[in-house]
């Protein structure tokens, strides 16, 4: 592997092909170890007879406040959800703030209040923190990093290696709302819309499934950057099985669908902040769907496909009955100009 050439582009951060390249060519060769190499939403560590889940995430959203959430709520939910995806019960967070000189204290106050209520909602506590202030122009208002710690039940068997051909794919609700809410909140498009970010902590919903249907959840990811299609591709690779998604079955609200048509965006590649894509044991899939739909955050859940033996590809079965391959995105999606 030769050292990569060139400069970091914004596209290196969009969760697609270039992000993967950065991880495989820059980070893993030097920092790699068996735990990191799994590239899951959170690392699961065996410590003194106890299983801990550990993760970190940084938040740089613009604007800081948008319909349905804000950077503070996002910083708590994003990390809580990463822990939830490996079956952990989230307990503690750290919060690191990078503040821009000149930031209004009232804005910071609002962000922290929002973190506080999101933490209460998720039942986690912020137990460590850090603050740095940088010169005006070095960051955009406020950047937040949160790390999270959770406990994994000792007997839990989850992960790509537990997935079997024939297992079903389940999405916990309609896709694309977070990305659309944020794009519209930037005000660049001057489109009136009632769309709200789905930003929410998923540990309650995942906990319900794990208690009422133990062993049903095989493998989960939250489709944030890059959206549902991207995590489907990543999960298929990790399992070494083919994932087939039914285009007609993927939940999408009428409003989100109409906005995507208008802007020429593909909803399958848009970020979500309160959804998961789960591989579920075939025989318990209908029961898991019931449990999801009984929870406010899973009311729009749907079974959207299945895993089949194959080579680690993700496919979409279109309404016309054709099958097309899903790929990692290359570069961000932009509204169409034609």
């Amino acid at each position: 592997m030769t050292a990569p050439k060139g400069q970091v582009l914004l596209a290196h951060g969009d969760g697609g092909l270039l992000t993967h390249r950065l991880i495989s060519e820059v980070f893993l060769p030097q920092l790699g170890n068996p735990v990191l190499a799994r590239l899951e939403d959170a690392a699961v560590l065996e410590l003194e007879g106890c299983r801990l889940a550990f993760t970190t995430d940084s938040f740089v959203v613009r604007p800081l406040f948008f319909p349905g959430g804000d950077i503070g709520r996002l910083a708590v939910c994003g990390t809580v959800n990463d822990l939830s995806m490996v079956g952990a019960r989230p307990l503690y967070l750290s919060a690191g703030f990078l503040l821009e000189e000149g930031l209004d204290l009232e804005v910071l106050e609002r962000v922290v209040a929002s973190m506080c209520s999101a933490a209460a909602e998720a039942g986690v506590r912020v137990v460590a923190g850090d603050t740095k202030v940088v010169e005006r122009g070095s960051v955009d208002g406020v950047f937040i990093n949160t790390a999270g710690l959770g406990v994994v039940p000792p007997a839990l068997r989850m992960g790509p290696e537990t997935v079997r051909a024939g297992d079903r794919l389940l999405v916990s609700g309609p896709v694309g709302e977070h990305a659309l809410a944020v794009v519209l909140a930037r005000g660049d498009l001057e489109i009136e819309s009632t769309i709200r970010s789905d930003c929410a902590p998923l540990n309650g919903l995942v906990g319900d499934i794990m208690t009422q249907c133990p062993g049903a959840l095989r493998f989960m990811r939250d489709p944030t950057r890059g959206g549902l299609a991207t995590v489907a591709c990543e999960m298929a690779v990790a399992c070494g099985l083919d994932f087939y998604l039914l285009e007609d079955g993927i939940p999408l609200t009428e409003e989100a669908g109409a906005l995507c048509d208008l802007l020429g965006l593909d909803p399958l590649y848009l970020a979500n902040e309160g959804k998961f894509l789960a591989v579920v044991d075939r025989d318990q899939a209908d029961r898991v769907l019931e449990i999801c739909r009984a929870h406010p955050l899973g009311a729009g859940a749907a079974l959207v496909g299945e895993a089949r033996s194959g080579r680690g590809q993700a496919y979409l079965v279109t309404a016309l009955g054709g099958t097309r391959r899903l790929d990692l995105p290359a570069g961000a999606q932009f509204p169409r100009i034609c």
Partner: protein
Amino acid sequence: MEADRPLWERFRDPGIARALVARVRVRVARELGGHVSLMEVCGTHTVAISRSGIRAALRDAVTLVSGPGCPVCVTSPEDVDAMVALAESGLTVLTFGDMMRVPGSSTSLEAVRARGGRVRLAYSPMDAVSYAASHPDEQVVFLAVGFETTAPGVALAVAQARELPLANFSIYPAHKLIPPALRALLDQEVGVQGFLLPGHVSTVIGRRALAFLAEEYRLPAVIAGFEPVDILMAIDRITHMLVRGEAEVVNAYPRAVREEGNTLAQRAMWSCFAPADAAWRGLGPIPGSGLGLRDGWEDLDACRRYGVWAQPAGAMRTGCRCGDVLRGLLLPPRCPLFARVCTPAAPQGPCMVSSEGACAAYYRYERGDGDDGPQGAGAAGPR
């Protein structure tokens, strides 16, 4: 109840779509010698046809060739080089997203930005005006690419800049007009028997502006919307005309397109633009196919203001054949670079960069498993 369903839902009905596919296939097999070749002009149609699986469903019966209808793709390398030169000279350049990654003869706007150039995304021409107004210490240039669809918006932005007045705002005029490009294509003998015409462009210019396809070139053509049923109804109609030996330009998108088009938008467009000669990637120079700023508006032309002009670009040494793709001479999977050297992550040409480009549409939605590497089969298709 059929009548109770929202209109848009009926335009997506898989049952109706499948029935149209079957009807077209039977007609082509029995009455049109087993195969017809049509061109979809618009990039948004290209994506819709790939994404919905229509291209695959009609495979072998109807070949749908993508035309020069992706605004980013038809922007000439000379224009991209000039845009890069503007960005490198310390100005703030605002552009639509996909222009960022289009390679000129040596570099792209994205690379200029990574090196510290001020290149920013704009979602609309008005964004660029607002940006210029709030950054009086920067010289702001908006890269005006697109067709008749976006030109009226650019015209309004230019008028607004004149009215405020904004001394630090100008545009790089690279807009193109669809009818002259279709004429140029037909004069070069493109081997298609009919046209699927762009719904968005027609909304502005009207059916009348495209009637020459039937009147002068005796070709059937249908203006269509963008849902699967819209597109299939148009193909159904074109093949029906071919069977009967008819040539008409039909408006099958009456919910958006009028005979005379949107006259308000046309007036806005011609208030500050006049037809100008323009170079198209693939088609070369076409007289009167672009939009330049009219007399009295030249002070808003970035080329004049900063003395940066499109220069003949060096030959693209990559072997990129986007030009042939744009003329309908080459299907993307037949390009030797497709999916091997040229991918969305490392695009060698604009048709792989743009979300509306034919190569990107084929790569994203129509790649079989054989198209990953040097051993890949040429023609892609879902299995």
